[in-house]
């Protein structure tokens, strides 16, 4: 028995968990979210991939294999999830652009193009082909960004280097929050005699005030400015996480940090509480219903031993693609590793099939048959299934 009883407990603070939690809190539920640490969304590019198999993500979704869980979500739910997301992010000062009917390209840090659907406004001016005339501004000794990769692939690109006195992504991003630094940077960049149409930066243009910083540079340089996502620490990923977290807080949700759920209290067909390890008294939290959004292997929802794949908290049945030797392809860079299909199989109500829990819903990257890398359905899939799972939970409560 725990201290406080919640209506719903969400496990996992990624895009799926925070989205489901916000929606439920907005519908009047008393919601808590528990998380082992910060989610993999912080490491992401901040772009919302919906489905990258075709120019039109909606058609790409239709063409996914029959067992893909994207088919459990209606078109209307996808639209609502995306509209809701865009509205909330814009309200939080992190505007996203793009439509569910059209994919677009984003220039990557190695000069290739990534296909995605919704992008933060800071990447809106990213060129759509190798012909793009861009000038890359980078920073002395910045370990995580080498403009040479981009220059070698894009014919009409050049670069210059500014010495910020600091060589880390985080450090430079927080310097940009300082007006004096921004001003001295602008004085320098104005002298660079940039001729290209657009100016590109590694994604270090501020943390909280990124939109204002970018607009100021655009105004002074009289041309579009865009960010190129970097390897972690990824500022666009961090900004996305911060805004999702803020909207969850604003809706009235509570987050328990460093609260790694290690098991559950069960009774009949119901989960009654989740448990975490503690130095003192047993630490548990009760709720009427639970949403499992712990992600896949990297997120911490699944783990594998030598013979099987295990769901870490409730020991739900996991779909496993054959024997261990069949989990991988020989080509490391192949997008077809069968391990990408491992996960929890759910029915239309987003409850795990072959499991006896009536009040446990599952969404996001832990679901089976997603193949995120192959299908390019990352955060967009999380947004859509989170909404569908939350709606199913509300429906069952009626």
């Amino acid at each position: 028995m725990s201290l406080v009883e919640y209506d719903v407990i969400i496990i996992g603070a990624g895009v799926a968990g925070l989205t489901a939690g916000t929606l439920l809190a907005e519908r009047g539920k008393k919601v808590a979210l528990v998380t082992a640490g910060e989610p993999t969304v912080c490491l992401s590019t901040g772009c919302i991939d919906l489905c990258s198999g075709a120019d039109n993500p909606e058609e790409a979704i239709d063409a996914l294999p029959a067992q893909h869980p994207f088919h459990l979500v209606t078109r209307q739910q996808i639209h609502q999830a995306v509209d809701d997301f865009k509205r909330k992010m814009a309200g939080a000062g992190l505007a996203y652009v793009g439509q569910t009917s059209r994919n677009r390209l984003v220039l990557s840090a190695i000069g290739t193009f990534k296909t995605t659907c919704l992008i933060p406004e800071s990447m809106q001016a990213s060129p759509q082909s190798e012909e793009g005339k861009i000038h890359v501004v980078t920073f002395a000794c910045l370990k995580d960004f080498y403009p040479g990769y981009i220059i070698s692939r894009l014919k009409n690109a050049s670069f210059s280097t500014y010495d910020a006195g600091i060589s880390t992504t985080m450090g430079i991003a927080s310097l940009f929050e300082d007006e004096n630094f921004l001003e001295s940077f602008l004085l320098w960049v104005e002298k660079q005699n940039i001729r290209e149409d657009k100016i590109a930066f590694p994604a270090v243009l501020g943390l909280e005030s990124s939109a204002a910083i970018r607009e100021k540079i655009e105004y002074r340089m009289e041309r579009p400015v865009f960010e190129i996502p970097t390897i972690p620490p990824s500022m666009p990923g961090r900004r996305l996480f911060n805004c999702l977290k803020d909207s969850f807080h604003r809706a009235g949700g509570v987050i328990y940090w460093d609260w790694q759920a290690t098991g559950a209290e069960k009774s009949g067909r119901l989960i009654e509480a989740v448990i975490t390890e503690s130095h003192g008294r047993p630490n548990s939290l009760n709720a009427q219903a639970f949403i499992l959004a712990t992600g896949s292997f990297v997120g911490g929802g699944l783990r594998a031993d030598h013979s099987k794949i295990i769901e870490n908290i409730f020991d739900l049945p996991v779909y496993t693609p054959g024997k261990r030797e069949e989990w991988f392809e020989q080509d490391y860079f192949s997008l077809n590793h069968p391990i990408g299909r491992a996960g929890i199989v759910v029915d239309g109500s987003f409850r795990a099939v072959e499991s006896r829990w009536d009040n446990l819903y599952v969404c996001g990257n832990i679901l089976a048959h997603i193949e995120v890398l192959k299908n390019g359905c990352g955060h967009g899939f999380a947004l859509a299934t989170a909404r569908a799972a939350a709606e199913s939970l509300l429906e069952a409560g009626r």
Partner: protein
Amino acid sequence: MKFEHCIRCTICVENCPVFRVNPDFPGPKQAGPDAQRFRSEKDKTVDHWVMLCSQCKRCDMACPSGVEPAEIILRAQQRYGIEHPRTAAHLLFANNYYLSQLGSLTAPLANRFAAAGIGKKILQRMGITTYIPFPEFSFRTMKKKPKPAGKGRKKVAFFYGCFINFYRPDIGAGIIRLLESLNIDVVLPPQWCCGLPALGNGNLALARYFAGKNVDSLSDYVDAGYDIIYSCTSCGLCLLNDYQGIMDIPRAKKIAENTYDLHEYILRLIIEKNIRPEFRDVSRSVAYHIPCHLRAMKIGYPAADLMKMIPGLECHILDDACCGLSGSYGFKKTNETTAVQLGKRAVSLIRKTGASSIVSDCGSCRMQLGGLSGMDAFDPAEIICESLAIDVKRKNTKNREGRKIARPLPSV
């Protein structure tokens, strides 16, 4: 220590307040798991920058792989502390308990010294910064009260901590009256500094000495059926985590199993329908700055839950920013710029809420945020007392915590 579990995702670095503003600190990943691979038992430590870590524990909270970089750094700090001559500031703050006893005994004198120009100069010479006024010693500290007075439905032993004892016994008295009004018997057991200041200044032996004495004393009360209550979240974290962890104190588990945050305890009694306090209207808007160490306690924000029950009270919860003072950390000259920059950021977030005053469980958070903003800073217990019409003779802090800062702040 699980430094091998680090996948180098840098989420800890993104959460490190010190790294954000001080380029001399390599961040929790490098100072923690990365450097740990090179730390050898045979060689003398050279990583002086471990002392720049403020032990806010935000990296421990954020790590998705369970590495606990702050814990790794804390251990490195202890070793550094043993192997290298300690600065005057480190020595003083490690022994803060004894110093404060002296300060309280000579309160009128000590306060005048700390506030006077010459006193400040001497403090600065010793490597202690004076950008916010030193807290004012209280001549009357908490009186020991080892036996219960009445026959309440619950018996608690109150671990009040040094801040309440030496600087704000008025808050301590308010908490006692609050508990008594809820029909709870309160005793003040013999107690010493929790040990955290010693630990934070690289003196594990002294920390263990304090911890051992506290456990001896508190253990008797647990045996006699008392629950232990703390109100300072850093003392609490130390009692619950560090006694069992780095200090390795026997019987620490028993203490942890019976120790509660003040508000967690009251909330529990309300939920179990043991008490039904009648909260009265407190029409005000407050910014609740969550201390980093409350966040690290894994119990949610119980004071926020209580304040939600108070009609008329608008409570903005802020848990993203560290105040930067971190106990004695920000009082050291070497950390002054870091502390001020972080404090200013926390204050700007508070101002954005439009709240009229600050609330925080931690005395040093209140000192920093009140000092930098000039706003009133309250303990949540003070707000709850107000709502329950419990008279608290609040120490007049306006002229110190809230006064205009005499010296211009270091430019950041």
